[in-house]
């Protein structure tokens, strides 16, 4: 592979150069060219430039170990595979087209439609075609459903294949998909193989930027080099054993966390219950005191790192004993009342055996326990158990703490030492959104999910990940912060052109001598890494969707830090109708108008001798570049959907 080595060497040389030139520029910017008299804009600008340099650095790290894998060996016979087709509300025809294609996959397997909509018509169609049909079991009623992750976990509990192929409802697989992928699992450490997502309803111009040739290419291959190829939710083959193993580990972790948090609040709950129920009777007060002591002991045991199963078991036995003291007191007073009735009426009491051990135990059991009448105490006792009664199934192999279950699950697999593979060959073809609204909803969800994982399980702090893996996860998260940077990049030239506010000490020769080589080498790196793939749309959208990225960051932060709802949007697979949705891109339209006004104003100011010529021309060029980038969003709003053309590229190259 001589050619590959050369390419890799070139990428490394360019990465090194980019970093050196970038640091050279940034150091000079920070030390010598911040215009402190306009610090309110100069400092934000130098900060976002630093942000961008770190982004370049992370891209360089990704490219550093780009891995192009050879085809794996043919798989052994006799592996058991389940093919899961996840659906919620997609049209039946679309689901069945995928399901029938899946049933034609050559390697022996079972095909299942995972219908989260529980639609009888889908069930009938599946049964008629002889395809398995799975919908949520009754345990999920009145419990968190966890969207797609819940759907998959439900199916995992209902099936038992060694491997599972996950396909979104629109992803039509090739018959050879399993034959091509299963061989990767000859390496027993491999947990996951991801293939590209490629869309057949997109033409060459790809106005909505649906194809992701840079991601399903150099970026995934680069991540693969660090054993950090991402799981992207569909078109992936997974080893069940790996998924179950991390599911169980996370279950234990989750129980421990819940138990720890509950015990922390235990004293307060008991104290309040005692105050509120002081009048009910001494026996209740005493029982609550017993529970309080049990909470203390459990806390101590947990601190001593005793197994959480033993801690909760001991706790529950003590709670049962406390409940039994209340029941015994109740039965004693019933007995006394019956004695009185007997004396009054001369009736013989048939209830000598009232206070037997069996009766007391039954009446004190958790479902009938009198202590359960005190809501907060009941909830506390319930939480201090290992069966996770608040969830439909205790072990959730697919992570449920993010709306992008794929990334969170993948990170767990990696942190437990499993390996992932990126297989660069299109083996399933799907449908991309055909309108701006759907596209924005989808990008928002990806970004929100990524930021949720970032805030909940920061990859830089996760145990078990290698440094490279940490950087690969962090890189993706870092890139979603670009919305904030975009605002500064848009505002800075407007301020200069309209008001002459200078964000740098001077647009001098020094400035250009440091900036331009960096920009050129960086673009060259990007060009070489992309290897002729069309990456321009991706570059446009990373700036043009800046309001989406900002919204994703703020909503994810509000969700993780303050428990606000994020909402889970299922991306519609069919086009949403109506006129051009200008309201969706109002911030971009305002930015475009402001940039045009600024360019004209700047030129006028220069012509009448107010604006400095060098700075004006640089900023007008900057504005022009921004406008070219942003223009894509207008074309996207006007996009009328996909019409197939004859010269459509049908081969499997990306």
């Amino acid at each position: 592979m001589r050619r590959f080595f050369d390419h890799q060497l070139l990428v490394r040389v360019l990465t090194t150069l980019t970093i050196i030139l970038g640091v050279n520029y940034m150091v000079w910017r920070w030390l010598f060219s911040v215009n402190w008299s306009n610090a309110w804009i100069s400092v934000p600008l130098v900060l976002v430039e630093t942000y961008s340099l770190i982004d370049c650095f992370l891209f360089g790290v990704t490219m550093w170990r780009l891995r192009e894998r050879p085809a794996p060996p043919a798989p052994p016979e006799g592996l058991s595979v389940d093919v899961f087709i996840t659906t919620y509300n997609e049209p039946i025809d679309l689901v069945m087209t995928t399901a029938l294609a899946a049933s034609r996959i050559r390697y022996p397997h079972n095909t299942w439609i995972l219908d989260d909509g529980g639609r009888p018509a889908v069930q009938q169609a599946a049964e008629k075609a002889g395809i398995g049909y799975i919908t949520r079991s009754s345990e999920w009623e009145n419990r968190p459903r966890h969207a797609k992750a819940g759907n998959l976990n439900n199916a995992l509990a209902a099936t038992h294949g060694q491997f599972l192929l996950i396909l979104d409802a629109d992803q039509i697989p090739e018959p050879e998909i399993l034959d091509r992928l299963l061989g990767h699992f000859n390496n027993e450490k491999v947990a996951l193989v991801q293939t590209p997502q490629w869309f057949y309803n997109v033409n060459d111009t790809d106005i909505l930027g649906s194809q992701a040739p840079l991601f399903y290419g150099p970026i995934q291959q680069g991540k693969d080099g660090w054993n950090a190829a991402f799981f992207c939710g569909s078109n992936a083959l997974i080893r069940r054993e790996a998924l179950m193993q991390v599911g169980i580990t996370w279950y234990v972790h989750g129980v421990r966390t819940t138990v720890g948090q509950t015990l922390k609040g235990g004293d307060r709950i008991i104290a309040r219950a005692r105050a509120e129920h002081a009048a009910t009777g001494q026996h209740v007060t005493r029982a609550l005191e017993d529970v309080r002591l049990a909470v203390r002991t459990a806390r101590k045991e947990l601190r001593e790192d005793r197994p959480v199963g033993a801690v909760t078991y001991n706790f529950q036995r003590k709670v049962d004993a406390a409940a039994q003291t209340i029941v015994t007191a109740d039965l004693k007073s019933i007995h006394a009342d019956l004695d009185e009735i007997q004396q009054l009426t001369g009736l013989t009491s048939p209830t000598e055996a009232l206070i037997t051990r069996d009766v007391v135990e039954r009446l004190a059991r958790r479902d009938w326990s009198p202590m359960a009448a005190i809501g907060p105490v009941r909830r506390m006792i319930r939480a201090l158990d290992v069966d996770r009664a608040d969830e439909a199934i205790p072990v959730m192999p697919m992570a449920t703490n993010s709306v992008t279950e794929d990334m969170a699950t993948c990170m767990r697999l990696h942190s437990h030492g499993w390996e992932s593979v990126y297989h660069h060959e299109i083996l399933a073809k799907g449908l991309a959104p055909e309108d701006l609204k759907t596209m924005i909803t989808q990008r928002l969800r990806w970004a929100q999910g990524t930021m949720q994982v970032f805030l909940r399980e920061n990859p830089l702090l996760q145990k078990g990940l290698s440094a490279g893996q940490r950087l690969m996860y962090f890189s993706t998260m870092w890139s979603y912060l670009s919305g904030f940077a975009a605002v500064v990049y848009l505002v800075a030239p407007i301020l200069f052109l309209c008001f002459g506010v200078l964000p740098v000490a001077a647009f001098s020769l020094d400035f250009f001598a440091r900036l331009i080589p960096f920009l050129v080498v960086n673009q060259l790196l990007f060009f070489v890494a992309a290897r002729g793939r069309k990456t321009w749309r991706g570059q446009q959208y990373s700036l043009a969707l800046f309001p989406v990225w900002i919204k994703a960051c703020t909503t994810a932060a509000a969700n993780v830090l303050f428990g606000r709802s994020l909402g889970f949007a299922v991306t519609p697979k069919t086009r949403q109708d109506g006129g051009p949705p200008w309201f969706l891109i109002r911030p971009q339209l305002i930015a475009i108008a402001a940039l045009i006004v600024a360019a004209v104003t700047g030129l006028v100011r220069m012509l009448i001798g107010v604006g400095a010529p060098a700075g004006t021309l640089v900023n007008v060029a900057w504005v022009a570049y921004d406008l070219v980038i942003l223009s894509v969003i207008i074309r996207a709003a006007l996009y009328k959907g996909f019409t197939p053309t004859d010269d459509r590229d049908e081969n499997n190259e990306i």
Partner: protein
Amino acid sequence: MKFDVELSGEDSAVIRANGRLNLMSAPDLKHLVTGIVQGDGRPNVVVDLAEIDFVDSTGLGALVFGLKTARAAGGDLRIARPGKQIKMVLQLTSLDRILEPHDTVEECFE
């Protein structure tokens, strides 16, 4: 927990309740029965349990306490239409032989 009292004849009353008859609501039932029997002078009380879906040992104690109060005043307390869980508890404690469950409220007056 909500109680509804319907007066019946000269010396009777029907208590209708819904929800859970437990540690929290039992004291209310005790007060209510005492009030009807001793305050209003109606020693014959029927407790309609149709809307009660759960009883615990303290709730059971309140029913027996009501029975004692009614008997002491020369009357009786009878229960009508208990649900499955209440029947199980009554059987478990053998109290169904003293607080015999009736199928209708009318039957309690026979």
